């Protein structure tokens, strides 16, 4: 426990985090790429076409990881945001604010791939189905957080305000989801099930899991890269940044 605390406090210091992130980033990239290649091979080549959906089902190997990541990133961001608002450590602000664009990217992917999948399945690119609608609202929440962050001149102030918004969003998100589900049943809209929980064949499952884990590692890698830049930008007056800029490590 004590060692963990020490490590936590060390990671909270920007120069240490900068070095640490630079060290683990290549590893995260490597794992993400290897897993993604394996997952793509399994999903696009090895898995047989689905009995009902034909080859269109192969979209799940990008859609489902993106949809899961859109929520996972939000969770990480909300926890960082909570810490940033209560205890105000600089690192939590950076991690929360640099997570938001990645989460927004995954949400956008989930929306695009979801509608590309919807066209062959439901005959339309967009339907106001509960999942797609919730995902759209989630996208707006991400945009609001990013917009609020950039509306402030001072990044620390912006980060804290946007973190507070992220916390409000975390409370709001389940409410949105359940109200949208209720609204959907009320209007008896299309009730489409992507796939029943029992119908996943193992040949489908393992590429899906690989892609999901790859997406998580990608998130880690991208977050490290973004945080490093953000730290350089925010700590510009500090000596360690000057040393970093003078020193060799200018690419990366």
């Amino acid at each position, binding site marked *: 426990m004590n060692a963990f605390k020490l490590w936590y406090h060390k990671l909270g210091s920007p120069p240490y985090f900068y070095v640490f992130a630079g060290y683990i980033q290549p590893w995260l990239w490597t794992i993400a790429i290897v897993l993604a290649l394996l997952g793509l091979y399994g999903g696009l080549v090895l898995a047989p076409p689905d009995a009902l959906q034909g080859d269109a089902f192969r979209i799940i190997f990008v859609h489902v990881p993106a949809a899961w990541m859109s929520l996972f990133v939000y969770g990480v961001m909300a926890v960082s945001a909570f810490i940033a608002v209560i205890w105000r450590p600089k690192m939590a602000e950076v991690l929360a604010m640099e997570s938001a664009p990645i989460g927004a990217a995954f949400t956008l992917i989930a929306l695009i791939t979801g509608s590309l999948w919807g066209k062959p399945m439901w005959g339309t690119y967009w339907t106001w189905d509960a999942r797609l609608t919730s995902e759209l*609202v989630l996208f*707006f929440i991400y945009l*609001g957080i990013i917009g609020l962050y950039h509306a402030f001149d001072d990044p620390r*102030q912006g980060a804290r305000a946007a973190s507070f918004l992220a916390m*409000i969003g975390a409370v709001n998100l389940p409410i949105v989801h359940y109200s949208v589900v209720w609204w959907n049943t009320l209007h008896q809209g299309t009730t489409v099930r992507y796939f029943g929980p029992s119908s996943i064949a193992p040949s489908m499952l393992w590429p899906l899991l690989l892609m999901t884990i790859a997406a998580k590692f990608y998130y880690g890698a991208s977050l490290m890269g973004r945080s490093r830049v953000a730290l350089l930008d925010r700590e510009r007056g500090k000596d360690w940044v000057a040393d970093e800029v003078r020193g060799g490590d200018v690419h990366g």
Partner: protein
Amino acid sequence: MLPVLYAIIVATLFPFALGPEHALLARIAGGVVLVTVLLAMLLALDNVFRGDLDDGALEQMLLSPQPLSVLLAARMLAYWLVTALPLLLVAPILAYMLGLQPAVQPVLLLALLLATPLLALLGIVLTALTAGTRRSGMLLSLMLLPLAVPIVIFAAGAVGAAQQGLPWIAPLAWLAAALALALVLAPLACATALRIALDT
């Protein structure tokens, strides 16, 4: 009175866009009035703290020994009285002009009576968060949309159910519960938000 005028203008445009067919207008009347009222309230939201921020009165409020959340609760009440109450007065007229069945009018009014204070409370928390920024009307709309979605769904759900002669009390009960919760939490959240937005 600007929000009221705005609501009247928006509601008037709908028949021109959709045609004066009575059945269609009657079906969408409830939803149109709800969304119109929401947009009109949004119009006034950006100015809630602007004046106090520009003349320094907000600083005096922040620094006074009174609890900030109580002062902000008064601010929220004032906003609702000035913006939402006049809208509540014109909303039945607009709904009638769009052809909403008279029997549904009380449900619409009740839905608005619960939805508008809820929107005011949540909207002002978000406005407080943008208090330290430059003019931000568009950003505020973007931030408010996700919070407004459930409110609109439940309020419109009640009106829609009443139009079909179905029981409509459940969604309104949810709105009332949310309002009770927001009445307690929103002033506190607003005080926190304001301190975050104005502190460096």
